[in-house]
């Protein structure tokens, strides 16, 4: 009878260890996936911001006018996709599994926090060339 109890206890402990490992592995995998999506998103988005001469922000959308005149708008659609829409046509998806974005301008730098569905918060910072020109011209 005692050995039965001990076996049950041992199995329970083993099960708990395996479950913990499994949860940890899944959390890590999800985190890494989101990290990769975030890097890809930042790559495109920051390159757009860097060449922007006009930045227009609302609570959850970003509108950029690039130095060559191209205009882009960024927002999260109902499917949880962060989309980049070019004025006059052309939509691309920058990231998936996005809950919300919160863009802000801080000292000429565009700081945008991107919250993903799995709770990961990605902080993106990029300086539009407009701010550099302002600095150089001493205005």
């Amino acid at each position, binding site marked *: 009878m005692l050995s039965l109890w001990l076996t049950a206890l041992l199995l329970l402990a083993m099960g708990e260890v*395996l479950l913990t*490992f*499994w949860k940890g592995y899944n959390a890590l995998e999800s985190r*890494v996936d989101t*990290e990769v999506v975030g890097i890809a998103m930042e790559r495109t988005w920051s390159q757009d911001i860097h*060449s922007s001469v006009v930045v227009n922000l609302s609570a959850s959308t970003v509108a950029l006018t690039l130095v*060559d005149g191209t205009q882009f708008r960024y927002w999260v659609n109902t499917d949880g996709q962060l989309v980049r829409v070019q004025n006059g046509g052309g939509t691309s998806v920058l990231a998936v599994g996005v809950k919300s974005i919160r863009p802000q301008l801080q000292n000429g730098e565009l700081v945008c926090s991107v919250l993903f569905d799995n709770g990961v918060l990605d902080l993106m910072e990029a300086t539009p*060339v407009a701010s550099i020109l302002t600095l150089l*011209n001493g205005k």
Partner: protein
Amino acid sequence: MEHIPQTGVNADHGHVLLSTVGFLTVVSLILVLLGTAADYSFQIIYMQSLATESYWLAKSQAVYALSELTKHSTVDTQPLTLANVAGHEASVTTQMTLQKATATVTVSAAVGTARHTVTFSYNENTSALVTWVDSDVPPQ
């Protein structure tokens, strides 16, 4: 015949030993998986830090070049070599081509496997920036 209860080391015919070994095998396999996943994420973070280093080198040199261009209409094209940036030798090169009144400057920075190029054009007659392109793809 009277039943004699088994005692001693082999009382369970080695079942406990077997299941312990099996459990430890499963646990070590999981640890290997976790380690591999962690290794991947470290690699991603390391590559990203190299990319960030090369970005800032290219960007700061480009801002310097733009500043020179607006003030003195010329650009310092001396290549820079930095002995140690994140454990790598880094190089920054600046090139300028002048076409009519438009100066096109290409600044390229390389740190390890990462590189970043900033290309911009500046029209000196209108004192306006015409293009500004960031790229982590090496220039053709």
